[in-house]
């Protein structure tokens, strides 16, 4: 069992060294940062737009900054964080490429997770003529906060094209790591990313 019921937290925590500076974009109520503060003694900051989540972060004892990610990270200095995390919200942001580049400007490494559109049951839904609705894509097409729909293969291609180094990829289904083809079997993808040519800090 993982703490707080989020299966990916333990895997993310494994990539974080004790005492690191961590920035969590779209941090929600601050649960991940709280987990990392308690487990790893990190110096964490969350970015969150929703006011109720901002208050929840404060209640969780997490530093939170109410910034709009669509405005980018321009106020954050180069290399000011060891890890910049974006957990399950990359698909909700319109400016995907600039944001990924900003994450790797501000942080030595980026940790990104997203629901994989290429997951087999999703493909089957499309094959049957309907948009997929699942645990990690719980919305109907007309009320989804997601604005980008992409697969693990799409994301790999983007990283290659943009000079973003994929240092690790883990795929999960039903909260468990999957073996074999991640793009077919993975419901959620979790990436550790770095700058091309830079030393891996993993």
């Amino acid at each position, binding site marked *: 069992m993982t703490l707080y019921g989020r299966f990916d937290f333990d895997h993310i925590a494994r990539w974080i060294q004790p005492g690191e500076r961590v920035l969590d974009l779209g941090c929600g109520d601050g649960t991940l940062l709280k987990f990392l503060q308690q487990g790893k003694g990190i*110096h964490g900051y969350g970015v969150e737009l929703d*006011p*109720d989540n*901002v*208050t929840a972060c404060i209640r969780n004892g997490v*530093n939170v900054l109410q910034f709009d990610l669509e405005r980018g990270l321009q106020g*954050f200095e180069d290399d000011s964080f060891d890890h910049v995390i974006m957990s399950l919200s990359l698909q909700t942001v319109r400016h995907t490429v600039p944001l990924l580049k900003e994450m790797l400007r501000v942080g030595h490494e980026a940790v990104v997770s997203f629901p994989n559109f290429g997951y087999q049951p999703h493909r089957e839904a499309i094959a049957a003529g309907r948009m997929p609705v699942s645990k990690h894509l719980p919305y109907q097409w007309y009320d989804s906060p997601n604005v980008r729909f992409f697969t693990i293969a799409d994301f790999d291609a983007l990283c290659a094209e943009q000079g973003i180094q994929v240092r690790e990829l883990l795929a999960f289904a039903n909260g468990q790591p999957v073996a074999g083809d991640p793009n077919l079997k993975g419901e959620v993808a979790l990436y550790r990313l770095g700058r091309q040519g830079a030393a891996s800090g993993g």
Partner: protein
Amino acid sequence: MTDPNSVGLVVPQTARFDQEIRLKSGACLPGFELVFETYGQLNAARSNAVLVCHALSGSHHVAGYYDAQQKKKTLGWWDNLVGPGKPLDTNKFFVVGVNNLGGCYGSTGPRSINPETGKPYGADFPLVTVEDWVEAQARLADRLGIGTWAAVIGGSLGGMQALQWTLAYPERVRHGIVIASAPRLSAQNIAFNEVARQAILSDPDFHGGHYYEHGVVPRNGLRLARMVGHITYLSDDQMAEKFGRQLRHGEHRFHYDVEFEIESYLRYQGDKFAEFFDANTYLLTTKALDYFDPAFDYGGDLRAALARARADFFVASFTTDWRFSPERSREIVYALLHNGRKVSYAEIDCDAGHDSFLLDAPHYHAALGAYLEGIAP
């Protein structure tokens, strides 16, 4: 009927300081008095004290009331925030409000008698700065036996004092709470202050600041100053919503008396203010605002200026505040991040412009209340 969330009837106190205070300008006051109020109980560890710093027109009277028959009229200026069970909870915190040096609510200021002349200081009262205010407040803290504040909190000019506390006395402030404030005024801000000052200085009743001796006050100048100020404290949207182009008489009458409701409102606000506020205090307070710039001694580098701070911070701004815009608060936040300070920042959606910090928008008080709850000893 007693309100369980009110600190109730309060009485101000006066502290006298006989040791001279050297001001940033180089001027010296041989001694001074500060009027203050306290709410709640200082705990045995003396670890629960919170200083509330006031803005341009505020005072030591933060919470509670002076007259049970006239509660509303004599209510403290931040009563919606401070009280039992309120966000700044007086069941947990010992809260101190103080009228600043140079003020007109009883602390030593231009209305006080200059011991050298036996007459009111008037224009001879030295210009005081945010740094001087913090210095005077520190002496009050010593007097009250408060070594370290749990928090220093303020909005607008009060936020500047909270920030200054964390720089002047890094070890004496655990949390700086800086609301609707800025690390320095913009040229536009100084320009508004200058218009306000010129309104007062050019009033024939000003008499070079020695109007007390003439038995008059520069009421018109003060009134104009407040009217200009008031425009900048509200948002365009809010003014449009509240007043729009509403006409007093439902028609254009082609004269200079009140026709549009916004004119009536501004005149009322100006008149009310000119009744009680001291013009010399207004002048010197706007100068204190203009001068405040902790980065000045660091070549304009705010990050370097804030390197001394040791406190944790809560910073808040309001989306419609164009006098102290969110961008200015973000500058503070980024400078604190640079220095590795713990900081939370709330950018609150509220349509009331700069004055939002005095209101109780739900997300504002929720975030601030959560922060304060988290730091209660």
